[in-house]
C-alpha cells in the first residue's frame, strides 16, 4: 500500500512542477513587459513618433525608423507573397512524387532552419554588391523576402492541403482545368489559412534586426525613405542603437520604441490567430 501512496505523491508533485514550469515562462514575459512599460510608457507621445533621430535623447524620435519598417514590410510582402504562394501551389497541386519534389521539400525544410544572419550575408553579396542596390530599402526587402519565403510556402501548403478533396473533384467534374480549379476554388477556400501564415511571417520580418545590420542598414538616417532605392533604418535597428548607448535618456527611448515594436508584433499575431480560428471553423 505504501508504494501506491508514494507513486500518487510523486504524481501530484510532478503536476505542481508542471504548472510551475508553464507559468514560469508567462510570468517572466509579464515581468519583462511590466519593466519595459515602467521604463518607456511615459516617453511615448506624438512627438516621439514624429521626431527625427537626434544626438539628444529627449529630442529623438522614431519617425525615420518607423517609416523604414513600413516601407520594408510593404516591399517584402510584394516580393515574398507571389513567389511563396506560387511555389506552394506547385508543390501541393502540380508536382508529382519524384526526385525533384523530394529535393524541393528537403531544401525548403532546410532553408527554414538557416539562421537569419546568413540571409544577411547572402543579401550583402548578391543584392547590395553584385546587383548594386546598395544598402537600400529594396535590398533589405529582398533579403527579408527570401528569409520568410520558407514560412510562407509551408503555411500556404498547409492551408491548401486542408481544402477537402471533394471540392477539387466537383470542380474537375464541371470541366474546369487545373488552374481554374486552383484559382476559383482552392485559393478562395484556403484564403484564411494563407492569410494567417503570411501575417505570422511578416510579424517575424518586422522584428528582424541581424540580416538588415549585415546588409548595411543604418542606425542614423536623417530622412524617411521616399523611394525603394533610399537608405533606411528600421525600428529594431533603432532600438539596438539606443540600447548600445550608455547615456540614460537613450535607455528610455529604447524602452519606448520597444513598446511600439511589441505592439505591432502582438497586434499582427492577434490578427493571425483571429483569422486562423475563423477559418478553422469553416471546415469543421
Amino acid at each position: 500500500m505504501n508504494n501506491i501512496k508514494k507513486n500518487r505523491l510523486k504524481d501530484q508533485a510532478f503536476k505542481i512542477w508542471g504548472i510551475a514550469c508553464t507559468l514560469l515562462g508567462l510570468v517572466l514575459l509579464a515581468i519583462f513587459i511590466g519593466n519595459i512599460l515602467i521604463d518607456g510608457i511615459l516617453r511615448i507621445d506624438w512627438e516621439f513618433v514624429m521626431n527625427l533621430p537626434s544626438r539628444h535623447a529627449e529630442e529623438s524620435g522614431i519617425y525615420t525608423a518607423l517609416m523604414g519598417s513600413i516601407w520594408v514590410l510593404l516591399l517584402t510582402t510584394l516580393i515574398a507573397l507571389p513567389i511563396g504562394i506560387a511555389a506552394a501551389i506547385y508543390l501541393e497541386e502540380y508536382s508529382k512524387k519524384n526526385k525533384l519534389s523530394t529535393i524541393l521539400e528537403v531544401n525548403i525544410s532546410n532553408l527554414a532552419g538557416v539562421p537569419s544572419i546568413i540571409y544577411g550575408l547572402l543579401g550583402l553579396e548578391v543584392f547590395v554588391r553584385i546587383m548594386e542596390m546598395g544598402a537600400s530599402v529594396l535590398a533589405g526587402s529582398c533579403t527579408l523576402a527570401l528569409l520568410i519565403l520558407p514560412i510562407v510556402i509551408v503555411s500556404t501548403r498547409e492551408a491548401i492541403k486542408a481544402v477537402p478533396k471533394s471540392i477539387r473533384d466537383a470542380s474537375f467534374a464541371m470541366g474546369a482545368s487545373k488552374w481554374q480549379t486552383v484559382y476559383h476554388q482552392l485559393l478562395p477556400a484556403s484564403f484564411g489559412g494563407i492569410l494567417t501564415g503570411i501575417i505570422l511571417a511578416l510579424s517575424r520580418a518586422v522584428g528582424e534586426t541581424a540580416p538588415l545590420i549585415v546588409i548595411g542598414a543604418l542606425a542614423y538616417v536623417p530622412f524617411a525613405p521616399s523611394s525603394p532605392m533610399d537608405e533606411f533604418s528600421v525600428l529594431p535597428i533603432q532600438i539596438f542603437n539606443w540600447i548600445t548607448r550608455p547615456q540614460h535618456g537613450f535607455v528610455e527611448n529604447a524602452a519606448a520604441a520597444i513598446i511600439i515594436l511589441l505592439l505591432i508584433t502582438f497586434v499582427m499575431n492577434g490578427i493571425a490567430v483571429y483569422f486562423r480560428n475563423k477559418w478553422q471553423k469553416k471546415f469543421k
Partner: protein
Amino acid sequence: MRKIKELVIERGLLLSALITIAVTVGIILVLSIEAIKFFSEVSIIDFLTDPEWTPLFTDKHFGIMSLLSGTLLTSFIAIAFALPVGLSISIYLSEYAPKSFRRTIKPLLELLAAVPTVVYGFFALMVVTPFLQTIIPGLSSFNSLSAGIVMGIMIIPYISSLSEDALHAVPYTLREAAYGMGSTRLQNAFKVIVPAASSGIIVSIILAISRAIGETMIVAIAAGQQPRLTFDPTVPVETITAYIVQVSLGDVQHDSLEYKTIFAAGITLFVFTFLLNTISYRIRKKFQEKYE
C-alpha cells in the same frame, strides 16, 4: 489555347518553386567563394587551432575556436535552461492539463517566440544581468550566463510546442493500456508516452539547439564583444553571430581581409546548423512513417 495557358502557368509555378533551390545554391556559393578567398590568405590549420581571434587588431589571429566556444557556451546555457522547463511543460500540457487550459496556454507560450530578439537583448542587459549581479558579485556586465538564460526563455516554446505535438500524437490506446495496468499519470508519461514520442522530442531539441546557435541579437547585446576561449559563464565572450554584427556595424572595405572573415565565420555557422537541420529532418521523416 487553353492548353498553352495551362502549360505557361504550370511553368511559372515551377519557376517559383525553383527559386528556393536558387536561394540555397546562392547561400552556399556566396559563403564558399568568400571563404575560399579568405583561406588563400589564412591557413585553415591556423583557423581551426589558433586559440585567439583578433582580425580587427594589428596583431591578427584567426582562430575560430574562441568564437565557436562563445557560441557553444551561450547555446549550452540556453538549452540547459529551456530543456527541463520546456519538456515539463509539454508533458504537463499533454498528460495532465485540461483540454481548455491547453488550448489557451499554447498560443500564449508561443508568444515567447514571437517577441523580436532585439527586445530580449534589452531584457538580458537591463533586467537579468543586474538581477544576477546581486546574486553573483563578480559577474561582468556583459556575460554569457544572462544572454544564455534569456535565450533559453525564448526557445522554451520551440521545445514545449513541438514536444507536446509529438506526445499528443501517441495513440490513445497506449495510454489506456498503461492506465489499465494501474499506472499513475507520471508513470504513464515517463515509461510509455515519452519513449513512444522520443523521436519527435529529439527533433524539437535539435531544432532548439540550431535556433540557439544561430541567434544573434541577444548575444550581440548582452554577451559582449570579446572573443575568448573560455567556459566561464561570468565573463564577456563573443559568438560567431555577434562577430558578424560587430564587423557589419563598422566601416569595412569590400575585398579587405576583415570583410572575408565574416564569410569564413558565416560558413562555420552554416555548416553547424545545416548538419543539425538535416539530422532533424531525417528523424522527422522516420517518425512520420511510424504512426501514419
